[in-house]
């Protein structure tokens, strides 16, 4: 069964916390990965791969650059789950 927006956000926050040490509460839909959360491209790659595994989706490399905010990532994952 597909995860809800809230479930995806929480799952993503866990992944971001594990990779960067940021508080899960800081990972909010309107936050920019680079501007607000200071996540570099290498960390982003790890987050993407972990999210793929957690949510059973595929996030193509060319799509990663479009995921500017946490909300972009949550929507993409939600859509991909179908």
């Amino acid at each position, binding site marked *: 069964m597909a995860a809800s927006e809230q479930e995806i956000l929480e799952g993503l926050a866990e992944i971001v916390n*594990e990779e*960067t040490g940021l508080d899960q509460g800081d990972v909010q839909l309107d936050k920019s990965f680079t501007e607000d959360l200071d996540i570099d491209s290498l960390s982003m*790659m*790890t987050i993407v791969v972990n999210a793929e595994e957690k949510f059973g989706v595929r996030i193509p490399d060319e799509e990663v650059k479009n995921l500017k905010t946490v909300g972009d990532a949550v929507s993409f994952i939600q859509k991909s789950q179908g």
Partner: protein
Amino acid sequence: MSSARRVVITGLGATTPLGGSFADTWDGLLAGRSGMRTMDFPWVEEFEMPAKFAALLHTSPEEVLSKVECRRMDPSTQYAMVAAKDAWADAGAPDVDPIRFGVAIGTGMGGLHTLLGQWDILREKGVRRVFPLAVPMLMPNSPSGTVSLNFGARAGAHTTVSACASGAESMGTAYEMIRAGRADIAIAGGTEAAIHPICFAGFCQMQALSTRNDDPTHASRPYDTGRDGFVMGEGAGVLVLESEEHAKARGARIYAEFAGIGMSADAHHITAPEPEGAGASRAMVEAVERAGLTPADIIHVNAHATSTPVGDVAEANAIRRAFGDAADGMAVSGTKSMTGHLLGAAGALEGVITAKSIAERIAPPTINIVDFDPAISLDVVRDTPRDLPAGDIAALNNSFGFGGHNVALVIKSY
């Protein structure tokens, strides 16, 4: 800039099988404690390893570093960071000019756990699961680069790789950096995290490791007739080295003077020591000469003494060849009897131990000698520590590495 600046030691740091800091390690050494433990890794039984114990790190780096830092560093880099933080705090964590601040940290094996762990992941899960930081984590200069980054040291970050002489050579590199005027202060040492089944299996196949599986704490026994190989260890040792004027200007506590280094290569065999000890003795003589001392000034030797049947005798012969009758006046300690053999970190850890030995005027013991090998004609400090004399004293620290690398350091009282 004078090319003959004096270099002093102002910080001591380590993480070892005896303790998570150099202070705890030193306590363990004076107490004659063994850091050896039976390994409970599944691979020991899975691969039927002939040797089933090692000198495993006493304290997890996670006690000092964050979970995220640990995820992004190979264990070899984690150990270097822990030892560097220990040494830097011991030096008073001074504010220094970043462009006059250097790093030299050696390793024998590099990021072995990352290299092989990521190779397993590639084969099992495919390219997308390989960690994006795999390359910067596995490269052998990751410890020096990471320490440079975290401490803001910008005079240069160097990595020496000479097997079990790597750590000592890095201290020599930092010493030369300061003497040549390239830096005023440096973090220098060695690190190793090589207790991985492939490395273990390789040493087992060389018959280099002790297989005293029923009695690990008595397995590392340099100079005893019953010695049957070394015990693999892991950890890191780090010194803060500083020009004398820089240390004095900031009112630093000075443990000792880093007085000289001698280096040579055997060009004899990739692993076996040259039996006459010509290369090793040349390194020792050069170190003493470059320190402006004579053999009679050396009253203590922290020997390489790994507890292998051939190596211990070869080194003893080399010491005798280098110093003749003056060797009678040298109290020799084999601290690997307690710490195990930290490979690329061994010479660094022993450099730290030697600095402390000179500062405290006490030679740590060599434990586990039950039947002293008559082939060894040295005055070995056995069982309990021995006081070193008052006045001007100096000590030698030997390290030898596969490849025929010989490195001798001289540290003298200040």
